[in-house]
């Protein structure tokens, strides 16, 4: 039963444990950008703003990270990614929060805007042929001892720093949302805006800050795609992750830890498809695997949508 299986970049000998470990490793890697985008979106949705323009923040973050990493290294790339995502979200906020324009249509326009702008800038800077472009990539840091644990060791503890940051961000967000005054204010704006206003909270200011935070997180998601995964920029490489992130938020019941777990589930679905493909299951068209995350999103939404907070579904 020994055969070679390639998942992502790592080649491993197959034993059930090794397959499982490789699968988990790919799962965590795929889930990282999704978790960033979805955690940010959970904050803005808790404030009552659905930002369909998340996709735009991701692609803007990816291109900015590509450009900046060449000059300033990986750290500068992540910073530029977050800044670009935030800028795109600021444009969304100007219309959706400032002018109270329809959130969905504004978000759609923002995504279209960012996809067009990044395509234009990319082809202008790097030529229409799309020169093979490589960026420095984030190094993997294997943590001592725990990274040698069977099955989960390498998957969770031999990852780039951007993944470790999530282990802090997700619980911190959960604590912030449930236990702090600011977190309560955020939820009040989303669920009971009248009560929030009565308590002296400005809904617009809260929503603006929430949208900007979500934009920066989505920008980090885009930077992660480039700097910790692909090592290059491809037009449209966000590939609907902004929309998938919105589904992840629903599946995670708008709670940061739930959202992080849901992101892992989506990462697993994507990794399974890579595994099946590499095992040569040619009987099943590979497009079915590519479509799987989107079908899973529909399924998840069908099961869970009716049970969301009143302003969000």
């Amino acid at each position, binding site marked *: 039963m020994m055969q070679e299986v390639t998942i992502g970049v790592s080649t491993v000998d197959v034993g059930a444990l090794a397959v499982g470990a490789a699968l988990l490793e790919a799962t965590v890697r795929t889930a990282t950008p999704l978790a960033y985008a979805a955690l940010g979106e959970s904050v803005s949705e808790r404030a009552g703003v659905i930002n369909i323009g998340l996709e735009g923040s991701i692609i803007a973050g990816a291109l900015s990270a590509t450009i900046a990493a060449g000059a300033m290294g990986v750290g500068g790339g992540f910073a530029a990614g977050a800044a670009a995502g935030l800028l795109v979200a600021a444009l969304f906020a100007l219309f959706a929060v400032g002018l109270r324009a329809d959130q969905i*249509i504004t978000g759609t326009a923002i995504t279209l805007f960012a996809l067009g702008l990044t395509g234009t800038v990319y082809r202008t800077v790097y030529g229409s042929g799309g020169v093979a472009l490589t960026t420095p990539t984030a190094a993997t840091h294997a943590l001592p001892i725990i990274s040698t644990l069977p099955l989960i060791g390498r998957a969770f503890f031999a990852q780039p720093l951007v993944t470790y940051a999530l282990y802090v961000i997700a619980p911190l967000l959960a604590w912030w949302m449930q236990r702090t005054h600011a977190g309560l204010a955020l939820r009040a704006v989303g669920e009971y805006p009248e009560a929030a206003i009565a308590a002296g909270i400005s809904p617009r200011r809260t929503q603006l800050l929430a949208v900007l935070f979500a934009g920066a997180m989505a920008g980090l998601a885009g930077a992660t795609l480039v700097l910790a995964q692909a090592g290059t920029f491809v037009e449209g490489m966000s590939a609907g992750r902004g929309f998938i992130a919105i589904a992840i938020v629903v599946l995670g019941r708008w709670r940061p830890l739930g959202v992080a777990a849901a992101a892992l589930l989506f990462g697993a679905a994507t990794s399974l498809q890579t595994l099946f493909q590499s095992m040569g299951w040619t009987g099943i068209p590979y497009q079915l695997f590519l479509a799987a995350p989107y079908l899973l999103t529909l399924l998840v939404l069908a099961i869970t949508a009716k049970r969301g907070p009143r302003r969000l*579904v």
Partner: protein
Amino acid sequence: MTALRAFAATTVRVVVLLAIALAMLAALLIATGHDVVPALSAMVRGAFGSYYAITSATIVRMVPLALAGLAVSVAFRAGILNIGAEGQLLVGAAAATAISGTLVGVPWSIGIPVMLLAGAIAGGAWAAIAGALRLRFGVLEVISTIMLNFVAQYLTGWLVRGPLQEPTQVNPQSATLVPELHMPVLLEGTRLHAGVLLVVVVAIGVWWWLRSTASGFRLRAVGATPTAAASAGGIDVPRTMFGAFLVSGLLAGLAGSVEYTGITYALYENFSPGYGYTAIAVALLARLHPLGVLATALLFGALQAGANAMQRDAGVPSVVVSVVEALLILLVMAADRWRPSRADETGT
């Protein structure tokens, strides 16, 4: 008279918004280091510079944009945010392609309507999935239609490498449609096909339906205030909404089958250059008015034809047109904020 006044008002609005968007485009071109004058003149030449440009680039692009724009308008009028015209269009084109294989030897007067109808039905069925998810399970159609767009894209990718691949099995595309079943060309030596006449008829039909029929009225009532439509009007809101999903999908699917029988004659992966997304801008700029859609679709057809010429002649990436489209949508959103009603207050 009202129709005329509405037309004049829309024209003024479109011209002003377009001028702002083009000024922003010029700024973007300068910022990315392109020469503005040659770029924009290449754009104008590509859209209107010659008989061939007008008929075979601009008007030909108007056809799918108008049909998909009508699809978006009908849905938005009913308060349904169908972002899925792109997927519905693809599925429509795939259905027309699939059925064309059974139509060998059939006269065009039967074959073409059968293909168009197959596309419309498939588009309607694809939209019905989102409709059922919304009405039965409460899934926001915004998300479901976007997801279905991705699924339709991969479905097309599979079809053109599998069941619908051309006989030599070399290229990822379908067999070319037999010439007898091509949509008739209207002007010798151009690509202008009879689909443009169909679009005008369909737009007038949709306009009349929304304006003058009971079901059109119900649709508009549900879109304006669903609660009042249900309580005061006694309207079956879910049923009306589902109907709007279906009609919207039919129109988008028709856009796909018209494009297949009139222009591409084959199905392939990048069949649509984002017509379904541009359609949102088309519909909003027309303030969801079916006849206005004809004008704004022509405008966006010209923009896309011009953008292609700009890329060819001035080296400006044609994706820049997405930025213009997005800016136009945002400008419409900002402009309409100051209006008493969101949809068109005249005409329909």
